[in-house]
């Protein structure tokens, strides 16, 4: 195995020496990478990959980094699209879409959540009706970060209203660049607009873009969600090249900047524990024994949560997790953020009445205070996480269900 990895290392290194040129365009380069199978070495050889194990991917990434070379596109939900299509897609779908995922030439978004079904994804009411040789889509989706840049959407729509809710859904790839699809940015209470609403009015999906079976959409969506939860899609990119020259770097920096734009406030959302001591020293709050208690409480909670996460990661590797530990971490993150917001308020005092450039740290403190409420909602509310923890880690009884009959008869918004 190790020997094998060294062969792979040698091979990619040689290939990079021959092919990597910062003067190329990003698209040109990534197409080369895809054709050589280095863009996703763990994918099937039939679909742009090399059938290599994850350990080989790490080696390839090391060599790309060592050469200063740029890898396959990662921004947005493209990896969720790829994982879902690799598992459930037809041969034609894989051929049609996977290359664009890797080269970055085509962008993706996820169209699951609806205004009426946030916590309850399977309650989607976007309607897909078969008319002649196409599916006609009507409905509204929300809470996706990249629809305004996307070429394709991963769409969960209801095709059968007489089945129970989980059984009447079908999964589609929808072309976002069509007249029946309208994307509007949704402004948040902190002033950012990271999410979109997507309105579909007689939008069209071709039958070959159905993923999985008709009525089998929930199973397909579970694959997408499992990859989302495992953090697959969350690996946001950072540009660590410190401004290297070359056309390809410029294009890459631009790509990353666009991809990261919706997330600029995410550190503030998490409460910026990192700023607390420095700020307390600046304002003198560090000498207030009452505030010190809350600072210590926050640091202890934050540290405990980090240690918990590391222990869980170890346990996951050893196969000793249930998958619900992420919910514990998510609840801990909510605690941390809320407490951090309180601590920042206490430290900041009356200056917390300000926002924008006059607020401390050029508005960062104000942004914390108005961003933290999102932590306990985004990615599954705290209430949903508590359900998961109590049912899966403590094996407590499930809530009685009121949505098991034909979806047509289920009470909804």
């Amino acid at each position, binding site marked *: 195995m190790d020997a094998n990895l060294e062969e792979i290392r040698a091979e990619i290194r040689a290939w990079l020496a021959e092919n990597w040129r910062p003067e190329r365009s990003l698209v040109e380069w990534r197409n080369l990478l895809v054709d050589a199978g280095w863009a996703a070495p763990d994918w099937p050889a039939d679909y742009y990959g090399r059938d290599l194990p994850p350990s080989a991917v790490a080696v390839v990434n090391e060599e790309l980094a060592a050469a200063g070379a740029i890898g396959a596109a990662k921004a947005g939900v493209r990896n969720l699209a790829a994982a879902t299509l690799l598992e459930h897609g037809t041969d034609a779908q894989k051929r049609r879409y996977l290359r664009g995922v890797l080269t970055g030439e085509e962008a993706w978004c996820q169209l699951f959540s609806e205004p009426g079904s*946030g916590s309850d994804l399977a309650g989607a009411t976007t309607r897909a009706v078969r008319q002649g040789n196409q599916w006609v889509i009507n409905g509204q989706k929300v809470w996706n970060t990249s629809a305004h840049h996307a070429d394709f959407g991963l769409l969960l729509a209801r095709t059968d209203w007489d089945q129970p809710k989980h059984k009447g859904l079908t999964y589609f790839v929808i072309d976002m660049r069509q007249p029946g699809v309208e994307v509007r940015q949704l402004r948040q209470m902190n002033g950012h607009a990271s999410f979109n609403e997507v309105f579909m009015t007689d939008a069209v999906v071709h039958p070959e873009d159905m993923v999985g079976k008709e009525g089998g959409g929930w199973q397909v969506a579970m694959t997408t969600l499992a990859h989302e939860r495992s953090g697959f899609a969350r690996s946001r990119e950072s540009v660590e090249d410190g401004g290297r020259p070359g056309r390809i770097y410029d294009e890459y920096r631009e790509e990353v900047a666009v991809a990261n734009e919706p997330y600029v406030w995410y550190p503030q959302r998490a409460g910026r524990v990192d700023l607390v001591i420095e700020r307390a020293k600046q304002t003198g709050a560090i000498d207030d024994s009452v505030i010190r208690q809350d600072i210590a409480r926050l640091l202890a909670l934050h540290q405990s949560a980090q240690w918990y996460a590391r222990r869980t990661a170890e346990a996951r590797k050893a196969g000793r997790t249930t998958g619900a530990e992420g919910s514990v971490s998510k609840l801990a993150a909510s605690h941390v953020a809320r407490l951090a917001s309180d601590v920042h308020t206490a430290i900041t005092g009356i200056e917390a009445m300000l926002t924008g450039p006059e607020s401390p740290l050029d508005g960062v403190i104000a942004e914390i205070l108005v961003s933290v409420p999102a932590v306990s909602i985004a990615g599954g509310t705290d*209430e949903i996480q508590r359900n998961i923890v109590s049912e899966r880690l403590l094996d407590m009884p499930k809530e009685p269900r009121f949505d098991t009959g034909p979806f047509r008869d289920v009470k909804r918004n």
Partner: protein
Amino acid sequence: MDFSFSHEQEQFRDSLARFLRDKSPTSAVRKLMATDRGYDPAVWRQLCDDLGVAGLHLPEDVGGSGYGPVELGIALEEQGRALLCAPYLASAVMAGYAVLLGGTEAQRAELLPGIAGGTTIATLAVTESEGLWRAGDVRLAATASGDGFRLNGRKRFVVDGQNADLLVVAGRTGKGVSLFAVDAAAEGVSRRAVPPMDPTRKLAEIVFDDAPSRLLGAEGEAPLEAILDAVLVAFAHEMIGGAQALLDSAVAYAKLRVQFGRPIGSFQAIKHRCADLLVQVELAKAAVYQAAQLLADGEDATVAASQAKAVAAEAYMHAARECIQFHGGIGFTWENDTHLWFKRAKSSEVFLGAPREHRERMLQAMGV
């Protein structure tokens, strides 16, 4: 001591609430908060002329209605509930109380009618860097000059400072801290709007550069603590009004919103949290109403006022958080109204002293 509102008080509340429902829907709040002035002069005039709210707590001989802290509290509770954009807290409450408690009889007769009638927009500028007023924190220098005083220094977090015609300013002379009346248009006064966390309440920073002023009351005897008590009690009413609005909104949404085939308000975890929130809001209301009653009865209200501020601020923030949480994703959007109250709650938490500071003030006032 009264433990309930009179019929007349309830009627006043109802008529004000009706007015505010009509004139201050959140659509109006959103429009006004985007403006520099931040309020609608026509609505302000109606509020002052038809409902006479600006002089509610001021004596009849200076143009007020001769009511007291309880009625003023009702006015603020309803404004807080409706998130009314108006210079009411600044002018009627803060400056009004400052002149009433700090001015000479002649000064009251001169200055209060405009405030009571709402024709003068006044404000009170005490804070320089700390939220909780303490005479020791006042640094702005006042120097006798002719029959007045020249002011030099800077005041921050002046509510509606941009809109005010009359500034009541705390300044220091050799004799201690006094209040001074300053014409906002006078030379040497420069005002700068600062961007507020809560866009429905405008804030200014005001620099006094040898600005002319008149002493209010006796030199060195600004009754800052008494003014603070009265203002805190009024302000705490505004907070519980806002907290109640958030509780109402959270509960209404929970009853309406269906997930998993049932209203989320039928899930016990949500119900219990709404119950806990109701308990907190009701206890805060009891504390706030009682502080007003003590003030009305002429009793020492420092303990009750600081207690009211502390518990109202915490109930307000808790209500704001829960209201967003129960709304889920939509509760975090700009489009949803919850953040308007959330920002008011956050801003109110630290204005005039954080709960932590008022708990300490409360104990000290008890002699503990």
